[in-house]
């Protein structure tokens, strides 16, 4: 174990701490906030959990676009409830981040000044109602694949947040699939809308799992620390295998000419992903990347006086109560 001393991420070396940390990981037990943990482990978690939290928040925007235009009152209510869930997910995740010593405000500021990332998928626009179905079906679907894995992650607060979140995400996925089903069984205009949405969202959904294992920078360390339990490519394959039959049931065509069942592997083979697009979009170069971040900055800046008012009032009340008690 002493060879760990020189390893990146273990700079805050503590003999007893390391032993306990390693034992927890080996026994598949959870690391809790009060436990000693390597600096690198903490940093990696903060990076990943905050990125996840920001994705929940930014993800409210593309769907929020359609709240005022949902085609029926029931759809409107269901969509509103879904987006409200996503805000709740962000709260759980910001809280998980706080257990690692970063405040919600600090985390949010890192998003606004561009230090922190969020999922590239939300830098694509929602152009038609079918996109709301496609997001639920594909984006929440891909999120679940990733999050089910994270329920087994070694950090207790993150794993527990994921368990709560996964239950709701599978609702979202079913609701989204139901929207697309309705369209696929509808008029030619509706079918076209559904197919076009699948065309737009398919490849970005595959990109949600991140770079190939051979390119992944944080993959190995994350796996060693049992944060990540399955590789990007493995998760992506699982998603493709799960989703292609769902598209077939609907009579929709997955926009990949190379897609075919590989009997030998027991998996679908699929075509190459455009990693240039992925990198560009992740850096904010997506079709609406700038708009998304600006919308979040604006909400935060416009809300500053409201947050200040709440603090000022709470402080005044506290002071008044204290003064009354002193009399």
């Amino acid at each position, binding site marked *: 174990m002493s060879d760990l001393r020189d390893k990146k991420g273990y700079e805050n070396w503590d003999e007893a701490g390391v032993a306990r940390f390693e034992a927890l990981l080996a026994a598949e037990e959870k690391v809790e906030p009060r436990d000693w943990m390597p600096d690198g482990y903490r940093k990696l978690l903060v990076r990943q959990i905050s990125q996840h939290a920001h994705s929940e*928040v930014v993800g*409210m*925007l593309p769907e*929020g676009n359609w*709240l*005022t*235009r*949902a*085609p*029926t*009152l*029931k*759809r*409107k*209510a269901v969509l*509103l*409830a879904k*987006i*409200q869930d996503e*805000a*709740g997910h*962000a*709260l759980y995740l*910001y809280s998980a981040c706080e257990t690692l010593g970063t405040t919600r405000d600090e985390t949010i500021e890192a998003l606004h000044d561009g230090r922190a990332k969020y999922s590239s998928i939300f830098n694509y626009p929602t152009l038609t*109602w079918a996109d709301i179905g496609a997001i639920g079906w594909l984006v929440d679907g891909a999120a679940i694949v990733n999050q089910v894995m994270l329920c087994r992650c070694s950090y207790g607060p993150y794993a527990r947040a994921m368990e709560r979140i996964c239950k709701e995400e599978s609702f979202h996925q079913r609701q989204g699939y139901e*929207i697309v089903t*309705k*369209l696929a069984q*509808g*008029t030619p*205009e*509706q079918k076209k809308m559904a197919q076009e949405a699948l065309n737009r969202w398919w490849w970005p959904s595959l990109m949600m799992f991140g770079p190939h294992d051979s390119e992944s920078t944080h993959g190995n360390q994350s796996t060693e620390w049992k944060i990540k339990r399955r590789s990007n490519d493995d998760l992506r394959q699982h998603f493709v295998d799960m989703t292609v039959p769902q598209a077939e049931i609907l009579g929709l065509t997955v926009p990949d000419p190379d897609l075919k069942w590989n009997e030998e592997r027991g998996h679908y083979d699929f075509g190459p992903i455009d990693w240039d697009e992925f990198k560009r979009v992740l850096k904010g170069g997506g079709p609406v990347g700038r708009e998304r971040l600006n*919308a979040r900055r*604006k*909400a935060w800046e*416009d*809300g*500053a*006086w*409201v*947050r*200040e*008012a*709440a*603090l*000022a*009032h709470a402080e*005044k009340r506290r002071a008044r109560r204290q003064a009354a008690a002193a009399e």
Partner: protein
Amino acid sequence: MTTATDIDRKSLTEYLLRLGDTSLILGHRLSEWCGHGPVLEEDIAMSNIALDLIGQARLLYTYAGTVEGEGRDEDDFAFKRDVTDWKNLLLAEQPNGDFAATMVRQFLIDCFNVELYTSLSKSTDTELAAIAAKSLKEVTYHRRHSGEWIIRMGDGTDESHRRVQRALDDHWIFVDELFETDALDAAIVAAGIGPDLKSLRPAWDSMVDRVLAEATLTRPQTDFPRSGGRTGSHSEYLGFILSDLQFMQRAYPGMEW
């Protein structure tokens, strides 16, 4: 199911639409905030309130469809009427503005809704009474939420005080309309279905005054109150709300979603 036999179907339908339209339009306005709130907890709270209001509208529309007896459902009422057939309060359709404007609009209506639904929950129309009883729990929570924000903003910083006082001044012209009555209301009162709206004013006044006092805000005066929403005379804003709300049903008529 209903004991309201001494009022004609058309009048009761109209009355239910007045209630449902205010709920839906206010809920729609609140939903415009989703993703843009000052803090995540408020995104959640405003979405929650919007959900309650949209839920109320759906129940009221569905019941209106039953009473009317012409086969219209909740979506027919929401998506297939033009501006002059809408009967919501003018206050409900006012733009969100800043958070102070939204909370003032909300608070003034929440205080009204608590009195209204308290009374409607004792309606001789048992179906409406049931909807009102469910709604009353919701609007009571809404009023607590908006009332707390009025106090926080009024008693917060100079800026928040200035903003919330201005919002109050701006929205006060729509207050009298809440308590306005016409022949339809008279028929509703006579049939024991709903309250005389004027009778709700004292309780509304005392609740609003109590909150304004705690918030150190000044109750505005107004010389030129606006009204007309309940009979279809709306502001220009409603047309823009409907062009969003009804876009899908207008662009793709007669389809299932």
